[in-house]
């Protein structure tokens, strides 16, 4: 076995030193009738070359978005990641380090986290951010729990146009607590009254921008109405590139901003691992879940960084902890941070503008197809299209042509009426004019069939 160094002689010498005659003597605490005598019914060890081939074979059975025109979004977005990002995160010192519990020999991870927290606070327009969460949906659920704690209230209102999986994760997370969630039904016309039940018993209102259907809205009035009754406004962002072009949630009055950071630096990887973003106002910092990195000095007075405010965490507070979460998405937050550093002010704004312009140009071409309507008046890089046929059938036909043509709304909202023909289409900087032309031609064919 290439990963284990001991020779038979060494094992024997070590057993002798320990004072036992065989390895079995070290496993005597396992109840006799539960000890395995033979090997598990699994293949034996394999050379690296064979493993390589086997993994390639899995990959070969999938249609790779790298070699097909792809317009998929709905919470995960394909963007170009500069080569530098993957190279740097694979440096041993980042890849194979543990949580930075020994700050003297973990300043690399810690300073990177401090920079990540700053970047997230800046793009969301908030005061502080944590060192990341599992993903966008878990961050959303944690925001609801935090709002309930901070306001000492027990109920949250979720917008009708929140990503359905975010709503499901939030429902799942709070279902056995004292807190409850009111979800408004999904609505394609975007009309909802989030203030109808907004009163002094409401901890927070959760709203997504751009929303699940791609629409943008000014949340300033909603923020004011929340604050009038002492509720918090939680804003969800699933496409973080939009923040390079659109006013930040903080600017609109949000109290907590959560989001999915995958778009910056993190590969699609069939849905994970991703990086949940969590930012809030200074006054709520001690209510914030998750890991935090803070600045301090060492014995010599040199600037350094440590994990801090850990008393909020489960190691110490146990059942009174702010959350049961232990880890962050360390390496993904590093990838995010490196990519954001490469972009900078100029690159981030230009990337956002490029995404928006490609999407707008594509939307114009798609809306020109007979029988196909683009429903959005506003959008960033994702919009909803109404087809004359069920979207589920359409994406299968498109896939047969080698085009990953979008996400049918009904896949995420199977029980909602009137959504069968709706297709979410995302266009990013990775899409060429030729990609769009192929999609338009294929959609024409499907619409006219």
């Amino acid at each position, binding site marked *: 076995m290439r990963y284990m160094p001991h020779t038979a002689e060494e094992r024997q010498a070590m057993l002798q030193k320990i004072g036992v005659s065989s390895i079995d003597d070290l496993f005597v605490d396992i109840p006799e009738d539960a000890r395995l005598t033979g090997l598990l019914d699994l293949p034996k060890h394999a050379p690296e070359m064979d493993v390589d081939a086997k993994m390639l074979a899995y990959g070969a059975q999938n249609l790779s978005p790298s070699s097909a025109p792809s317009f998929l979004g709905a919470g995960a977005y394909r963007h170009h990641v500069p080569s530098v990002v993957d190279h740097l995160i694979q440096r041993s010192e980042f890849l194979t380090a543990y949580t930075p519990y020994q700050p003297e020999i973990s300043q690399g991870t810690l300073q990177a986290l401090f920079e990540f927290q700053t970047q997230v606070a800046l793009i969301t327009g908030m005061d502080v951010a944590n060192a990341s969460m599992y993903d966008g949906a878990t961050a959303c659920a944690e925001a609801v729990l935090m709002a309930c704690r901070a306001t000492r209230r027990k109920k949250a209102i979720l917008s009708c146009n929140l990503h359905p999986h975010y709503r499901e994760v939030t429902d799942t997370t709070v279902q056995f607590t004292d807190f409850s969630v009111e979800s408004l039904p999904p609505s394609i016309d975007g009309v909802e009254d989030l203030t109808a039940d907004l009163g002094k018993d409401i901890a927070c209102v959760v709203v997504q921008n751009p929303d699940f259907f791609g629409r943008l809205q000014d949340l300033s009035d909603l923020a004011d109405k929340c604050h009038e009754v002492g509720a918090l406004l939680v804003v969800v962002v699933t496409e973080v590139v939009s923040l390079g072009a659109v006013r930040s949630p903080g600017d609109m009055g949000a109290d907590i901003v959560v989001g999915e950071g995958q778009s910056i630096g993190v590969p699609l990887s069939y849905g994970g691992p991703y990086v949940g973003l969590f930012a809030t106002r200074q006054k709520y910092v001690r209510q914030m879940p998750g890991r935090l990195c803070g600045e301090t000095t060492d014995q010599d007075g040199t600037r350094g960084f440590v994990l801090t405010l850990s008393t909020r965490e489960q190691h110490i*507070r146990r059942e009174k902890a702010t959350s049961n979460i232990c880890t962050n998405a360390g390496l993904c937050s590093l990838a995010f941070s490196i990519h954001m550093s490469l972009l900078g002010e100029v690159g981030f704004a230009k990337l956002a503008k490029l995404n928006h312009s490609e999407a707008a140009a594509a939307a114009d071409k798609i809306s020109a197809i007979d029988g196909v309507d683009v429903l959005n008046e506003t959008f960033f890089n994702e919009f909803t299209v109404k087809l004359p046929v069920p979207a589920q059938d359409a994406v299968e036909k498109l896939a047969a042509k080698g085009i990953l043509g979008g996400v049918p709304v009904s896949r995420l909202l199977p029980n909602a009426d009137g959504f069968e023909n709706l297709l979410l289409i995302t266009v990013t900087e990775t899409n060429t004019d030729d990609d769009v032309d192929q999609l338009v031609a294929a959609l024409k064919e499907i619409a006219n069939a």
Partner: protein
Amino acid sequence: MSTKYTKDHEWVTVEGDVATVGISVYAQEQLGDVVFVEVPDMGRELEKGDELAVVESVKAASEVYAPVKGEVVAVNEDLEDKPSLVNEDAQGAGWFAKIKIEDTSDLEDMMDEAAYKEYTEGLS
């Protein structure tokens, strides 16, 4: 009036019908460097034994319980910027809150200075 103590290491001094509450010198020594104190909201009505405050060090977080029933009539806002007051002057400038006492019998089962000293010596 002299200072009285609870088994949970809160101290209380009474002036008129108002009790000033904090944690003892012994308690702050056990906690180490205090980094944050969550004080109650003004006007909160507390039962005896309710959570009054949370005091945090780098390594530990401890609840502080209301030693008497009553309304919170003052909180030590200085602790927000200077939690170290709890270490420097636990039984003076490091007080947490003042409670308007509803029932003076709440004070009866508390220890005096000597009894508390004996109690803490028995703990180590």
